[in-house]
């Protein structure tokens, strides 16, 4: 046996150590489960961290009511297969007010059904640590975030007042009302995530694989018609196209790409050859250069 770990083995071990630190240091941790590929990796790492014990905290899914149907089916099947404790939270006020991305715009819809919903769920659960799947390579402001990222009592992030983080010695201490966001795969890149999924044979939502799906083309963005709630313009007709998704979220806000990549090696291959960054498919980021940083200060994950 060689003593040198590969970069994936190193990343895996470091992530496991972070999970264990959370379990050992906090009273009420929770893991954010977004059902995407990063969440699948996170879940896999959590299972490894605590084996043979079960994951010692619940998984929280913020259901905006506009997630792809296949995501919800995958979520419920995964919860059953692995037997973890799943909490699904929806902003009831938003549902009552009929908040949707079509009438209220993507930004307001996201604020209410995602950001506010997350705050509600975290406050209601009195969670002192929320584990998320954010990676530093995703976006500029995330590159500076700590692995253990402190939040004040209003769930807000103060980028100028972050705790220095040395070695793997994490300061996990909190005052009453404060909380921690923890990012075990901070140092993974998108390529790391995909090669790890490949190497470890981790199940992911089938939407990542190319398949013939009904879509409408809206100024270059392919929106999948996942149910009858998507309003169609005059003369707009869903067409079946071979598409897949690089990132998953609310179906009206997530653009598909034309692709024939139907298995993992083809996806990785296609990703390496493509010249567009991952978050481009997410419409919330394109508002302004600093929009993600602002959202994080307000409590968006």
């Amino acid at each position, binding site marked *: *046996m060689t*003593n*040198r*770990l*590969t*970069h*994936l*083995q*190193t*990343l*895996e*071990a*470091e992530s*496991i*150590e972070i999970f*264990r*630190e959370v379990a*050992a240091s906090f009273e009420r941790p929770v893991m954010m489960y977004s059902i995407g590929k990063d969440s699948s990796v996170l879940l896999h790492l959590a299972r*490894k*961290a*605590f*084996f*043979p*014990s079960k994951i010692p905290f619940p998984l929280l899914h913020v259901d905006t009511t506009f997630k792809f149907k296949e995501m919800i089916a995958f979520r419920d099947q995964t919860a059953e297969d692995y037997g973890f404790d799943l909490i699904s939270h929806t902003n009831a006020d938003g549902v009552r007010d009929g908040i949707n991305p079509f009438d209220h715009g993507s930004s307001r819809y996201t604020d209410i059904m995602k950001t506010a919903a997350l705050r509600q769920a975290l406050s209601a659960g009195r969670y002192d640590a929320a584990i998320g799947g954010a990676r*530093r*390579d995703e976006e*500029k*402001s995330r*590159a*500076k975030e700590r692995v253990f990222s402190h939040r004040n009592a209003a769930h807000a992030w103060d*980028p*100028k007042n*972050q*705790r*220095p*983080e*040395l*070695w*793997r*010695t994490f*300061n996990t*201490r*909190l*005052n009453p009302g404060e909380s921690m966001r923890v990012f075990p795969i*901070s*140092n993974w*890149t998108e*390529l790391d995530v995909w*090669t790890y999924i490949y*190497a470890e044979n981790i199940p992911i939502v089938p939407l990542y694989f190319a398949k013939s799906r009904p879509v409408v083309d809206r100024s270059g963005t392919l929106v999948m018609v996942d149910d009858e709630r998507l309003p169609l313009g005059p003369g707009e007709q869903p067409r079946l196209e071979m598409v897949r998704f690089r990132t998953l979220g609310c179906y009206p806000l997530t653009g598909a790409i034309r692709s024939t990549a139907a298995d993992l*090696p083809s996806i990785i*291959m296609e990703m*390496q*050859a*493509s*010249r*567009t*960054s991952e978050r481009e498919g997410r419409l919330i980021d394109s508002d302004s*250069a600093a929009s993600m*940083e602002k959202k994080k200060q307000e409590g968006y994950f």
Partner: protein
Amino acid sequence: MTLAIATPDTSLDLWLAQQTEKSLLRFLTCGSVDDGKSTLIGRLLYDSQLILDDQLASLKKESHNRTVGDEGIDFSLLVDGLAAEREQGITIDVAYRFFSTDKRKFIVADTPGHEQYTRNMATGASNADLALLLVDARKGLLTQTRRHSFILSLVGVKHVVLVVNKIDLVEYSQEVFDRTEADYRVFAQNLGFQTFAAVPVSALRGDNILTSSERMSWFKGSPLVPYLESIEVARDKADLPLRFPVQWVNRPNLDFRGFSGTLASGEVKVGDEVLVAASRKPAKIARIVTMDGDLTRAAAGQAITLVLDREVDISRGDVLAHPQAVPEFSNQFQAKLIWMNESPAFQGRSYLLKIGAQTVPATITDIKFRTNVNTLEQAAANKLDLNEVGTVTFATDRAIAFDSYAQNALTGGFILIDRLSNATLGAGTIEFGLRRAQNLTYQNFDVNKQVRAGMKGQEPQIVWFTGLSGSGKSTIANLLEKRLTAEGRHCYILDGDNVRHGLNKDLGFTEAARVENIRRVAEVARLMADAGLIVLVSFISPFEKERRLAREIAGDIRFTEVYVDTSLKVAESRDPKGLYAKARRGEIKNFTGIDSPFEAPLTPEVVLHGGEYEPPALADQLYDWLKI
């Protein structure tokens, strides 16, 4: 350099296998403001084709009105993340970047050059195998170059590359490069770097980044990226003694008890005998458990769960080691300390110290000296300010297992946490233990007022209440004591009831006896404050001379004279113990306010108006004034 992209002639499976076999190199970039760190990282990302089309488009747009290279791009825009930084045009926090070649994956910590952010540089350096130290070819070595080199050495970075940037602005001069390299070699000779290389580059123009620059044919060394791809930095942690810090006790059911953690160093095999560093209890490794199946052996860096062959009392923070090479186990050690907070480090202060999975209260027992990070000169100091580095001794509340940082960074590095705000205040690297726990004599450790106060996390002091009987002194003192105690302070009230009945029961009420009474109370208050307490003294103490005596006895201890100014009429109407009535009837002689005077204080620190406000409001006023 070949890129991390599959080409038609490599098979997909082979390429994927290659992706999973790469090694990892973590390095940091440091240097002065404007040396071009961000530009260099942007260049590395760009040249390894990790800048994607949409990023490139927005980059070109943003590069308008900025210094750009041949590609028309200001590369620093790629990595200057936070909005504040974009406004100020400087990097103020550690940013992590990722790129890979077909040989290696790289994690880059981009650290700030400004002096006030030196703590962030230390943060970036703590996880780095190697450092790129940038200098501007036009400026040569600066104060910050020296400071950053010292911090690298302090945090134990063993491999350094001096990147002489902006060489294009000195016409690719070999003479400038040679002089800069020579200057640095002289400066760095005592910093303990294992490898050193210098490379002349232009990050903006891409010279000597991926390939040797035609514009510097005089340079015979390796260009930057090929050097980073090939340098061997793995200090083989597997060759160090076994250190397994127990992070989490894994107990899914009554039949399984495992100890989960990451091997900090060394190697462990099934059947090995191990010791718990603290209790010296031995056990053998029965199983090495992972979700992928049991292992027969595991090495440094692996996250595993150990099952032992017998019941041993082990909890989070314990360290397992082989019996022939156990870590130090002590409650005193000397360390270098980098201070990272606006409020200074003081001798005698108590903090929480976290090392590995162990967290213990710890007190700075002595600041031996401060090291000037620019000149490396040592000077006496009684505190460490933000970004200062000192050599200090610590005493922890209970013994901890550790190694010297030079031997093992993961078991020799610690952070200090504020006990109230929970902020991370500083980082330390242990030099040596001062005392083995089995050796019971204390050395180099003067227990004094500062140390005891530090352990209590408060400023010991005397609050002296004076006023008529019935003025409300004791009521207010009691309320204040409750509030302070609720906040975790350690207080004690001295009043007539607990002193006159014991310590002073031999004293009467003659003038001489009253002076002796106050003298004794003041001496007891001083002793208690010396022991670290906040002492609330509630005595009528009617004479100015006695109160001055008490203040003199207190010496350098903070002394607050509180005059509870309640009129005789109000005090007499309250008469809680019926004493005024007795005095009026002549049953008590020399009663203050009736047949003995009360000298109102001339210069009390605080006056509380007892007739006008209720005791809780007065206690709050006093609390706000004291700011304990």
